[in-house]
């Protein structure tokens, strides 16, 4: 009889092993729920919050529709122009801060909007908004470079200025003697 139930002698060891397994298992489950982010697996095998965080970033560059809300005359000026698809920010910079100021001024008429600064002609000066009457702006697109499509209006500056009989060849605003930015009239 005693031999038949002799395995019961070992139950204390079995109990210890079972307890150990339960503690280990619950510890692993606790660690897992702590380490895996709550939104993990919401849309797929990644943190769902990451998607919302990226989508919530605020755009920096302004689009034309924002500019034309106030400067609607420019839209008419450009209607027939070859520059009608050229966005404002190409020649005037970003205008992000300018927009923020304009929105504040719309709510409070006492506020004044800061005037745009003149540009120094350096593409790495990242001014928010600038007035440009600089040949560098025009030539950033229109200077003839190997690789440009044949149907794009590109010029060799020196020969173009000589052909047109321009006087102040070295002046930064030499282009604007004949052309305007919004409607260059080619």
């Amino acid at each position: 009889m005693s031999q038949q139930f002799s395995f019961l002698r070992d139950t204390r060891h079995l109990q210890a092993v079972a307890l150990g397994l339960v503690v280990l298992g619950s510890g692993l489950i606790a660690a897992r729920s702590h380490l895996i982010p709550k939104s993990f697996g919401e849309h797929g095998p990644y943190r769902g919050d990451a998607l919302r965080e990226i989508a919530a970033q605020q755009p920096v560059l302004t689009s034309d529709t924002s500019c034309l809300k106030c400067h609607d005359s420019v839209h008419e000026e450009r209607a027939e122009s070859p520059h009608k698809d050229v966005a404002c920010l190409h020649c005037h910079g970003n205008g992000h801060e300018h927009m923020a100021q304009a929105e504040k001024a719309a709510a409070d008429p006492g506020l004044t909007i800061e005037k745009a600064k003149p540009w120094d002609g350096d593409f790495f000066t990242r001014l928010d908004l600038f007035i440009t009457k600089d040949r560098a702006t025009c030539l950033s697109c229109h200077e003839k470079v190997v690789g440009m499509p044949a149907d794009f209006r590109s010029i060799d500056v020196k020969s173009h200025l000589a052909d047109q009989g321009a006087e102040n060849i070295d002046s930064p605003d030499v282009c604007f003697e004949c052309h305007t930015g919004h409607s260059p009239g080619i």
Partner: protein
Amino acid sequence: MNKSHDSAGASGCGSRPATTGLNILNQGTPCSGGGSCGGVSCGGEQRSNADSRRQFLSRATSMVFGSFALTLLPMESPETTAETPLPAPLNGGAVPAQPVASAAKPVLYGFLVDTEKCIGSGKCLSACRTENHVPDGYSRTWVERYIHFKDGTVQVDLVPETGYHESTLPIVDAALVDKAYFVPKLCNQCVDAPCNQVCPVHASFTSPEGVELIDTDHCIGCGYCVQACPYGMRYINPETNSADKCTWCYHRITKNEEPACVEACPVGARVFGRLDDPESELSKRLGATRTQVLKEHLGTHPKLQYIGLSKEVV
């Protein structure tokens, strides 16, 4: 018998194996004899053996066929589970938070680059840098210029961020050039993106709209994805110590704005739009033209498509 045994034993050791063999036989007979008398127990053991064998076989067969049957079940990938809305109790009874599209049918974005229109003004490059706060010395997008000379050689250079005006690049003699064109490069947003597959911490993921994104909080900066991208689009951002890449301006496109580089292109060489909307400019352009993708042989299935590539462009 014993006598003969003894004599045999005395005569030579050659007979010894025979004796042992006989002994074994003799030992064997009582057992078989016992089998006949204690037949109940012995036979019962045999039957139970046979039963367990039958049980084992039937279980094994059902397990094998069962596992085969399991493979016939429809496979559920993370993408498909993302599309099917969770039942309310599983989702905590809350309305699923969808950043962009409805849960049923997500928006699909596409991108088309027309190399026949690009003038190499570099405006897209500075726009991207401003929009995405890309540190100096790194780029999410760039424009390559391919020059095919008349002697058969091909030269590739990078368009400066300021455009070619007053650039320090050597001026190319147009008389020696056969053809030349610009190729803007940006993230291909592959359907089977190798960069996504290798991420060891699930920090690289595909949004429901099919845009490859990076969870900068979880990225450990191991750089495996940087190695994996066959287009060289990824880099480790030294400011965040995390992998970084072009996201097609996910934060803009989800607000119905165009990516910064598209916004900044003065000639419309970059076209962005929705693939699932047949009325979008992109769908119309794609329907009207023949397009190519980069490194098609790698099977990454890029969503970025090109017009006017030459075989030299990689």
